[in-house]
């Protein structure tokens, strides 16, 4: 059947569209030909694909051919089946008839004859020649057509349509098209079925000896070709795919040996996209095609359909896979290993194209030994990086070549041995040529020489052999040019690689694309085109880095770094070095990593033209402590320790290191960087760096960034890590951790100072004032307390200040032994004496965290003489008089930045309040002593220095009976001391009025300073504990000559009620004639004194009433008042301001208290008046 192959090829090439036969029964073709052919190609056709699914095909190419045409007539039936695809797909029967009888007798039998052939798909076009104006003719034509329809249409299928020669309507053409497509579809279906069955039949024989691939191929390709003609490219492609599969199986099947490729000129050329490159008849051999050409043919056919299907990307993808796999096949065939070039761009000089692939061939003695490989040393890589060579290097090839050579039959090896090693060549090149054209793996064993060839070939020998063989086989001049020199080859290689890379990128296969970009970059680099090389490398590195493929990055990045170094791109070079350092440490040896670091350090210390901050986030990372954040009070500095991880392989010296904090609440980045004072050297791994933080605003702070300087290079790191070095895949790096490292609290009270003494202290004596200094969760270390005594108060600086622990639960601190032992805090109790200088006290260290009591001696000075009180002159004592102010200022904190200021008031008082009371008219009086202080007072001695006009009775020296003393007066209690005195009778009245008696009290005090008054601080050791208190007491002469008597008249009513008017009546009576007329006029001034809260005076409160100067004259004063509150209240008093008290006697005396009833319940509000 192989002889059909040529025929098949010829038919295939001559036939490019489907044929529609025209059976011109009534000689009408010439009339309709033009309009029919305008319908071609068929605009839209619905065909069935191989899977019997409808497919719409556009522009189906077709051709009308008359059945009488020689092209259709001259075929043998046998040919018709074999090449059925070229047979007509439809038959159009053109008829015309104007007479019914003629139709019945002539036309119909003829038509029946035509359409009885089942093989054909046919339909009838009835052409009506009748002019539309000719009614009769039209009618006739209609009749005939109706008859035709009834005869040839079946129920299932209409096969007739009517064509009006004079103006066919549009409906006809639709009808025509659909009938024609129906026919084509049916024919196609039938033929597909036929071919499928044939193919199946042949396939079944595949493993039998009669199997013939060529026949199979013809059937398969016929089917494919039919699909192609009907524009069913998808099905076509599938046929070729199956063909390829079948071929692979059959070609690999053991048995007959087949040649791989041809030996003619041009047989070494690949034609991947041109199926017609070589005629199939030329590559067939024993009913099987040669693999080299046939695989390319199949691929070319596949590509053709892929392009037609608008799938160029798939062409590229399949092409890539094809080239790769095919090159492997090539290599297996020892034919040409050109394809191995792909993927070894960097190592072009080591590429196998001119090396060992052809090592099996003998070679002529070379004119010159090529030096390409021998000279090509591996490039000295930057950083001394030593990579293991890729598997396909000359050394490996050499081994491989020698291995194969050992297997090779020895036929030509002796020659090889002779010519290669013996200097005198025995053969002509022509003779050897005949040998090395035997490109078979296992040629006939013609053991002409038994000389053992066990010496392995050297690389240079293989190289020479390869080059020679290449020259012999390659015929394409372009390819030869490309192989002629390294430059040319690289040019070609660059061109191809660039194209491939571009196309990969265009089809979004960026990862494939960058692999080729890397090749391009390597070639650029080799040519010294560093700029372009760097650009390409950057592209590669960017992708690998972005996706975190560190192993791949580690392979390319050093090359990029080298480019950058050569280009003097310092910033880029530094970044690359940093990136290299931050890659997984296992990817580089420690020596290499050290080289990276030394490069960074070298550059950092050099004069950089454009110093740029270096981002070392991946290299130097930092984190706060795991402990809770450092808490600082407002205004306080602090020390923050930060763990810094260095990924440098060696110690690295930093010029400076600063930390930036960022406030968590605000986006304000304006915080100043904080410099670290220590650690100029970062060791690899974890370093703890402390930062002294100046006072910050209140708020919480996060770690912001780490900045610093290596040499002259400033760097910056944002790399946070949690509890270990951050992993280097950047896109996974930690977010800025939200955990604050520093909290600065809002301003608050850090310390409280309150006076320890609540009650009054002794005036004019040196007294302790206690201050409770209470730190509130804050250390007062190195604190300084300024004490500024206000007016009337001095601090006794000669005395030491006492500081003791304050136990709030104890009343007496450090007082008695008993209290010490009972105290639970005995152990921690401490007392220390510190000096005071210029009003400043330094807080001792032990006292910095505990509440302490600070005692310091002060003396309140009151120059005025204390005065006693008497019923005649009640003492008007204001508490303000004894008040003294102390301004306190405590400076504390690390830099004394915290200040606490407070002014406290301390109350001082005299020890006693003295009032006099006359006990008896017999001129003796009592002194009432009231202790003013919360301390027991021991009165040791009291004596009274009387003013003139009085004298002690008896022999007394003004002291009461001596056995009275010591008189103990408990706090706030009273004691009376009786002095017996008398009027001395003599003396000036004025003098008597002015002079005071002086009471001297010698006393001691046993108070507690924590409570109040206490014994004064002994300034000198010999100071007596006795204190002397002097107080002036005014003694008055008794009322001896009453001039007026004021009598309170009883109320008119029994009881008083709130709101009821009541008349207060007093009777004033002159008891004797006044001695001094000016003093005692006939008018007297009166004044009603009432508590306004209790009484409302309804009328005049004061006024003059006339009272005659004669003795016994009397007058009544009535004042109307309204009581305002119920209860026992003091009634209003009548006073006579102009008359001295000594001259007024109260007779009868008024009531001390009066009873006022609540108001009566009133219902009058409800009743109209």
């Amino acid at each position, binding site marked *: 059947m192989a002889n059909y192959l040529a025929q098949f090829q010829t038919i295939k090439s001559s036939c490019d569209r489907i044929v529609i036969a025209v059976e011109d029964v009534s000689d009408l073709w010439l009339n309709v030909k033009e309009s029919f052919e305008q319908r071609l190609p068929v605009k839209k056709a619905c065909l069935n694909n191989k899977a019997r699914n409808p497919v719409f095909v556009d522009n189906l190419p077709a051709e009308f051919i008359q059945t009488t045409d020689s092209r259709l007539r001259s075929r043998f039936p046998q040919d018709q089946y074999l090449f059925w695809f070229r047979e007509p797909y439809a038959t159009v029967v053109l008829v015309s008839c104007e007479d019914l009888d003629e139709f019945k007798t002539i036309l119909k039998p003829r038509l029946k004859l035509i359409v009885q052939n089942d093989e054909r798909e046919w339909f009838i076009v009835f052409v009506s020649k009748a002019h539309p104006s000719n009614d009769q003719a039209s009618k006739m034509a209609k009749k005939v057509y109706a008859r035709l329809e009834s005869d040839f249409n079946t129920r299932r299928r209409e096969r007739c349509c009517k064509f009006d020669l004079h103006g066919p309507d549009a409906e006809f053409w639709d009808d025509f098209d659909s009938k024609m497509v129906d026919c084509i579809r049916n024919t196609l279906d039938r033929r597909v079925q036929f071919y499928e069955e044939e193919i199946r039949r042949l396939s079944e024989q595949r493993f039998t000896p009669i199997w013939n691939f060529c026949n199979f191929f013809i059937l398969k390709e016929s089917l494919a070709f039919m699909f192609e003609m009907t524009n069913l490219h998808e099905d076509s492609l599938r046929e070729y795919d199956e063909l390829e599969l079948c071929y692979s199986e059959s070609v690999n099947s053991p048995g007959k040996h087949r040649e791989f490729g041809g030996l003619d000129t041009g047989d070494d050329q690949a034609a991947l996209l041109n199926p017609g490159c070589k005629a199939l008849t030329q590559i067939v051999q024993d009913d099987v095609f040669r693999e080299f050409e046939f695989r390319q043919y199949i691929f070319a056919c596949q590509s053709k359909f892929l392009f037609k299907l608008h799938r160029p990307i798939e062409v590229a993808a399949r092409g890539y896979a094809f080239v790769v*796999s095919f090159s492997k096949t090539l290599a297996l065939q020892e034919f040409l290993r050109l394809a191995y070039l792909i993927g070894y761009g960097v190592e072009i000089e080591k590429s196998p194209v001119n090396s060992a692939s052809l090592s099996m061939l003998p070679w002529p003695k070379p004119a010159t030994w090529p030096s390409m490989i021998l000279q090509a040393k591996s490039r000295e890589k930057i950083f001394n990086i030593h990579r293991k060579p890729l598997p396909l290097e000359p050394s490996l090839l050499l081994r491989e070549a020698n291995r194969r050579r050992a297997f090779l039959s020895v036929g030509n090896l002796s020659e090889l041995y002779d010519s290669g090693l013996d200097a005198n060549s025995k053969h002509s090149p022509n003779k050897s040529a005949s040998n090395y054209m035997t490109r078979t793996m296992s040629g006939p064993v013609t053991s002409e020489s038994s000389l053992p060839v066990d010496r392995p070939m050297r690389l240079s020998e293989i190289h020479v052999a390869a080059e020679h063989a290449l020259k012999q086989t390659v015929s394409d001049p372009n390819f030869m040019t490309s192989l002629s020199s390294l430059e040319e080859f690289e040019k070609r290689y660059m061109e191809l690689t660039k194209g491939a890379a571009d196309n990969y990128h265009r089809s979004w296969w960026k990862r494939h694309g960058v692999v080729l970009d890397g090749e391009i970059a390597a070639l650029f680099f080799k040519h010294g085109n560093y700029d372009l090389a760097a650009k390409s490398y950057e592209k590669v590195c960017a992708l690998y880095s972005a996706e*975190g493929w560190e192993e791949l990055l580690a392979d390319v990045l050093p090359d990029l770094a080298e480019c950058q170094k050569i280009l003097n791109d310092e910033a880029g070079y530094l970044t690359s070095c940093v990136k290299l350092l931050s890659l997984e440490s296992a990817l580089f040896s420690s020596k290499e990593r050290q080289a990276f670091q030394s490069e960074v350090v070298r550059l950092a210390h050099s004069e950089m033209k454009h110093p740029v901050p270096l981002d070392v986030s991946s290299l130097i990372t930092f984190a706060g402590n795991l402990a809770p954040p450092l808490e600082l009070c407002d205004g306080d500095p602090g020390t923050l320790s930060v763990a810094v991880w260095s990924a440098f392989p060696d110690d690295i010296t930093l010029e400076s290191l600063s930390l930036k904090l960022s406030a968590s609440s605000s986006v304000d980045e304006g915080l100043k960087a904080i410099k670290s004072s220590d650690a100029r050297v970062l060791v690899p791994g974890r370093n703890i760096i402390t930062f002294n933080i100046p006072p910050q605003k209140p708020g919480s702070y996060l770690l912001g960034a780490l900045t610093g300087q290596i040499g002259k290079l400033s760097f910056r790191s944002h790399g946070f890590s949690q509890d270990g070095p951050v992993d280097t895949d950047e896109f*996974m790096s930690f977010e800025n951790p939200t955990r604050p490292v520093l909290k600065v609290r809002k301003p608050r009270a850090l310390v409280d100072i309150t006076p320890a003494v609540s009650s009054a202290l002794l005036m004019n004596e040196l007294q302790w004032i206690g201050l409770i200094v209470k730190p509130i969760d804050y250390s007062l270390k190195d604190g300084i307390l300024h004490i500024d005594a206000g007016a009337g108060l001095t601090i006794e600086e000669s005395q030491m200040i006492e500081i003791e622990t304050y136990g709030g639960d104890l009343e007496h601190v450090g007082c008695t032994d008993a209290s010490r032992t009972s105290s639970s805090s005995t152990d921690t109790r401490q007392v220390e004496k510190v000096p005071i200088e210029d009003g400043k006290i330094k807080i001792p260290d032990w006292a910095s965290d505990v509440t302490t009591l600070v005692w310091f001696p002060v003396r309140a000075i009151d120059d005025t003489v204390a005065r006693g009180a008497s019923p005649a002159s009640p003492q008007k004592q204001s508490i303000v008089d004894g008040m003294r102010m102390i301004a306190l200022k405590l400076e504390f904190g690390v830099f004394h930045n915290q200040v606490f200021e407070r002014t406290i008031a301390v109350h001082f008082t005299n020890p006693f309040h003295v009032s006099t009371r006359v006990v008896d008219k017999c001129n003796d009086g009592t002194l009432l002593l009231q202790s003013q202080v919360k301390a027991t007072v021991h009165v040791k001695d009291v004596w009274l220095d009387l003013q003139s006009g009085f004298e002690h009775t008896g022999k007394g020296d003004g002291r009461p009976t001596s056995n009275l003393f010591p008189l103990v007066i408990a706090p706030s209690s009273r004691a009376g001391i009786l002095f017996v005195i008398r009027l001395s009778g003599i003396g000036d009245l004025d003098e008597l009025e002015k002079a005071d008696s002086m009471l001297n009290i010698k006393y001691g005090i046993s108070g507690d300073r924590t409570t109040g008054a206490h014994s004064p601080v002994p300034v000198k050791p010999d100071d007596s504990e006795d204190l002397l208190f002097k107080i002036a007491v005014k003694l008055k002469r008794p009322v001896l000559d009453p001039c007026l008597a004021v009598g309170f008249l009883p109320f008119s009513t029994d009881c008083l009620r709130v709101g009821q008017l009541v008349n207060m009546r007093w009777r004033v009576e002159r008891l004797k004639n006044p001695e001094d007329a000016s003093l005692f006029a006939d008018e007297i001034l009166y004044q009603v004194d009432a508590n306004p809260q209790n009484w409302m005076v309804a009328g005049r409160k004061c006024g003059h009433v006339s009272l005659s100067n004669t003795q016994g004259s009397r007058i009544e004063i009535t004042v109307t008042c309204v009581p305002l509150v119920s209860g026992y209240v003091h009634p209003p008093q009548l006073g006579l301001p102009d008359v001295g008290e000594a001259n007024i006697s109260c007779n009868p005396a008024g009531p001390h208290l009066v009873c006022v009833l609540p108001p009566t319940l009133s219902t009058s509000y409800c009743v109209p008046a």
Partner: protein
Amino acid sequence: MIVCVAVVGHQNNPLYLQSFTEADDALKLHHVVHCSLDVIDERVNNPKRNAPALNETFLGLLYPTENYKVYGYLTNTKVKFIMVTTDLDVKDADARNFFRKFHAAYVDAVSNPFHVPGKKIASRSFGARVSTIVKSFGSGTTA
């Protein structure tokens, strides 16, 4: 024989890559795995019109390279498993079965509370389990 298996995160970052060859071609396998992501991307971004089921995780043969066939698998968390084999004739069912076992191992590995999601899988037991699966794949097909 399976020469390499890899887990690739949903950002196409390598999470695990283990080669099982004697030869020193780890870098090459890295390239193969990385390049196969192109195919996965393309498959995922341009699903076939008549894609079988949405939850189909097995991507099938991604592409054949010179010496290898690369198979892919996409979990529902967009983590990709890639298997590189030198076997020329791999049944889809075998590959599917392999990936199912591998997926189970992966799920166990990332369920480890000490595993940081998105980080490389460093678990040794995972590695051991993967080698077992890889070995059983080889024996399963040859037997």
